[in-house]
């Protein structure tokens, strides 16, 4: 079944407290060499029937109105094999 994935991440200039907290926790666990962690959302959208490539344009539209708020977030839409 075709699947479209949308990743939504906070824009770099917006503070990401969750990513920061994960970064801190990783360091406490002894992982070093990490320079930054960002946390965002991942949507997996299963399409029935429709060709995934046809749907991408529609989903781009949905991403910019609903799934992401362009004031604070960037998004990326792609068809997953």
């Amino acid at each position, binding site marked *: 079944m075709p699947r479209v994935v949308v990743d939504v991440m*906070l824009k770099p*200039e*917006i*503070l990401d*407290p*969750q990513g920061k*907290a994960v970064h801190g926790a990783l360091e406490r666990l002894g992982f070093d060499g990490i320079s930054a962690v960002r946390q965002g959302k991942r949507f997996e959208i299963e399409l029935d029937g429709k060709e995934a490539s046809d749907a991408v344009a529609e989903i781009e539209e949905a991403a910019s109105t*609903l*799934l992401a*708020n362009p*004031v*604070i977030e960037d998004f990326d839409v792609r068809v997953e094999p």
Partner: protein
Amino acid sequence: MRIGVVTFPGSLDDGDALRAVRLSAGEAVPLWHGEPDVRDVDAVVLPGGFAYGDYLRCGAIARFAPIMESVIDAARGGMPVLGICNGFQVLCEAHLLPGALVRNDRRKFVCRDQRLRIENARTLWTSSYTAGQEIVVPVKNGEGGYVADEPTLDRLEAERRVVARYAGENPNGSYRDIAGVVNERGNVVGLMPHPEHAVDELTGPSTDGLGFFTSVLESVVGA
């Protein structure tokens, strides 16, 4: 004067907002999210809560509720609209107000009594206060951090559109301690703290919140 309070599925503070309207001698009108328009009300309150569960992003789904089209039109036409907490988030999602509200910097829901400074006492919702006045009302949110890009923030400051600021501790990481903003025209106000929970000494930390509701009553009657 008739003040409508919109109930979305998942609205929680609608009852409190209706009570606050009544206590300030307005006529409280419950409105349902599925109605096509705001009927004959003179002002609208979008209350706190978790409309549609708010699982995606607060206010993101409510913004598309049937009644919102009419709220957006009315707001553009100058009707007083107050969004409290979730309502503020809805107003930002609907682009009636600039900026956005993000997860609290402490990553926890926070409920506490908060000191606020009223910065602009000339909006339709704050005229009962004096500029610089400090009040105490509850704040309770998980995604109450107000953010916007620097130019927007600068413009808000320059145009005196920051309505209220957190005094004392900033509970959620809001940029420039912003607790509430108003649109250019001065009729649409978004506020993260909850004045409707501060209308009765018995159930709130103060009665300081009444001013928002008496303001709109006076301004519309006076207009």
